[in-house]
């Protein structure tokens, strides 16, 4: 197997993270916000895998497994909250969830 330069993998991770950030900032629908957070978590995981492969150690993969567990817990609670919000206001508008204002 040919070695891939670590910088290529890190550039890809940075680009994917930026794309997830763009999705999180520009979309108003809550489902797209949660999805963009998942894209960002995957990009960070890719950076960890690249770093672990650089030194041929298992630590990068261990960190990715922890990120995976954290993403699963966050998605479950986030989607449960999303369904409650949808039940209350019948729309998934992130800007309409402002009852705490004032």
């Amino acid at each position: 197997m040919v070695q891939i330069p670590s910088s290529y993998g890190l550039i890809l991770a940075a680009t994917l993270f930026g794309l997830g950030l763009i999705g999180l900032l520009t979309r108003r629908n809550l489902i797209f916000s949660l999805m963009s957070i998942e894209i960002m978590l995957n990009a960070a995981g890719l950076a960890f895998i690249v770093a672990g492969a650089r030194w041929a150690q298992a630590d990068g993969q261990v960190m990715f497994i922890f990120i995976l567990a954290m993403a699963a817990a966050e998605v479950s609670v986030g989607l449960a909250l999303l369904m409650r919000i949808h039940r209350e206001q019948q729309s998934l508008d992130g800007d309409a969830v402002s009852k705490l204002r004032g």
Partner: protein
Amino acid sequence: MAIFYIAAAVALIATVLAITRLSAVHSLLYLVVSLLALAIIFYAFGAPFVAALEVIIYAGAIVVFFIFVVMLLNQGAETMHIERLWLRPGVWAGPAILAAVLAGELAYVAVSSSTARSEAAMVGPREVGLALYGPYLIGVELASFLLMAGLVGAYHLGRRGTEKL
């Protein structure tokens, strides 16, 4: 090497399409494609165990969970019309440019500090297991705490019996 380039291109294109679709289901399908491409990239970097985990857990459980919720919420044609209204160029141009600047900075920092190639060894499940249940044992226990907390939280938030949270 060509495997990495092709998979990286697919991942980037699929992610761009995922964040720009009007329908949530289309977005999620492109997200699945992006995650599968990332799994191939993990394998190309000599991490077959997390490549399998990415497909099984991320693409196979988390995104499927998303799709279930989207199907439950039953977004119809009026939702796509609202999405089109919300996605005017005046909305996405500013944050997109700023985030692209940040991504460029991040990539520059990543490139300028690492000029090394990855080692040719493949780090398989055995090494990952020895690391997880050796030095990182407390992380495994904490992850189980976190998943239990997520379970209890999701159960309480999803209850339909009472109206109080």
